[in-house]
């Protein structure tokens, strides 16, 4: 009986002390972690909307949508966070769009788990800069092995076709979702 009591008391004391210490550390860390996350989101929003100065978040069902304004508070476009499947896992893309949704300002890959050195090339400027000023109607197309001819085309990366295609699909899907919302007058 004494033995059992000893075991119970020891484990309880250890647990209580551990919990207390963690609570204290969390009080210190929590606001900092929240601030970091906010900073990261803001950075990404303005990365794809270079002239943006302020933003509003709009609630949508899938993804995150931010309406971006310039210095005079005129709306200049949207920043949309959208995700979909890549080659190995989820790819999260920040898409910058003009207010009429007809042109992309630029895109940024926020998260990906593609093959290092191959699929990860979608995060490099040669690939993602192709989206700067890309026309989105009727939809974005990709070509392989030759430079894009039409204003709504991008060239897929050799050796990373699936990752390239995935990004195109995610961007298309995100834009068509926004178009639907716009037609319904929700944004």
């Amino acid at each position: 009986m004494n033995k059992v009591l000893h075991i119970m008391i020891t484990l309880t004391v250890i647990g209580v002390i551990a919990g207390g210490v963690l609570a204290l550390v969390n009080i210190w860390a929590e606001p900092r972690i929240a601030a970091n996350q906010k900073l990261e989101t803001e950075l990404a929003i303005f990365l794809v909307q270079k002239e943006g100065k302020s933003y509003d978040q709009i609630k949508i069902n899938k993804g995150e949508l931010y309406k971006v304004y310039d210095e005079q508070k005129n709306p200049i476009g949207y920043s949309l966070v959208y995700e979909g499947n890549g080659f190995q896992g989820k790819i999260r893309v920040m898409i910058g769009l003009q207010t009429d949704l007809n042109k992309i300002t630029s895109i940024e890959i926020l998260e990906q788990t593609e093959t290092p050195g191959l699929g990860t090339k979608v995060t490099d400027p040669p690939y993602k800069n192709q989206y700067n000023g890309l026309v989105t109607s009727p939809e974005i197309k990709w070509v392989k092995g030759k430079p894009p001819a039409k204003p709504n085309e991008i060239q897929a990366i050799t050796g990373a076709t699936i990752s390239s295609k995935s990004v195109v699909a995610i961007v298309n899907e995100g834009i068509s979702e926004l178009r639907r919302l716009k037609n319904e007058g929700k944004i």
Partner: protein
Amino acid sequence: MKKQISYWREYFKGLWEINPTFKQILGMCPTLAVTVSVINGLAMALATTFVLVFSSVLISLMRKLIPNQVRIAAYIVVIATFVTIVDLVMKASFPVLSKALGPFIPLIVVNCIILGRAEAFASKNSVLRSFLDALGNGTGFLISLLLLGTIREILGSGTVLGYPVLPKGYEPMLIMILPAGGFLTLGLLMGLANFYTDKKDRAAKQTLKGKYMIPANEVLKETEA
């Protein structure tokens, strides 16, 4: 009273004689996963060393209070507490690093180096010895991760700490930063380490002096017993 090795050796044995990666073969999962670059290996080793030192000291302090039946549970709670502290501090102060190491920080809880040293050493030895043992093992882990990280980053990306070190024409060997490269590097280094130890043991046996010397692994058995 059993014979004890000097404090100095208590620290230094972790660097080579019982190097956690090459000799104890502990903590393989983080070793293989994070050593794609030098900086990741460095951060992982420092985080592990921090947890290892603090939990070893605390477990050594409590070694007479904890009932034998629940010692593992108690160790895990102590280790998990320190790991959570590291995780929170990193998320709060070094968000970039914390993102790169991703799920591997919480996994330090079950890193067998820490539980292994707690069970094999800290639970039986004085606080000072446990501290030195933990620090030594941490340093050994750091050396191995830096070694693996440097080799893989140079061959796989042509850089060290992000700075290019190889001529521009060099085509990086992608396999080195993929999981397969981790296994290859680790296997070769481990083979090299064993080859060296074998050769030294054989050389020691052949000299007259060797007959009177206690082999390194028996010294260790004594301290761990």
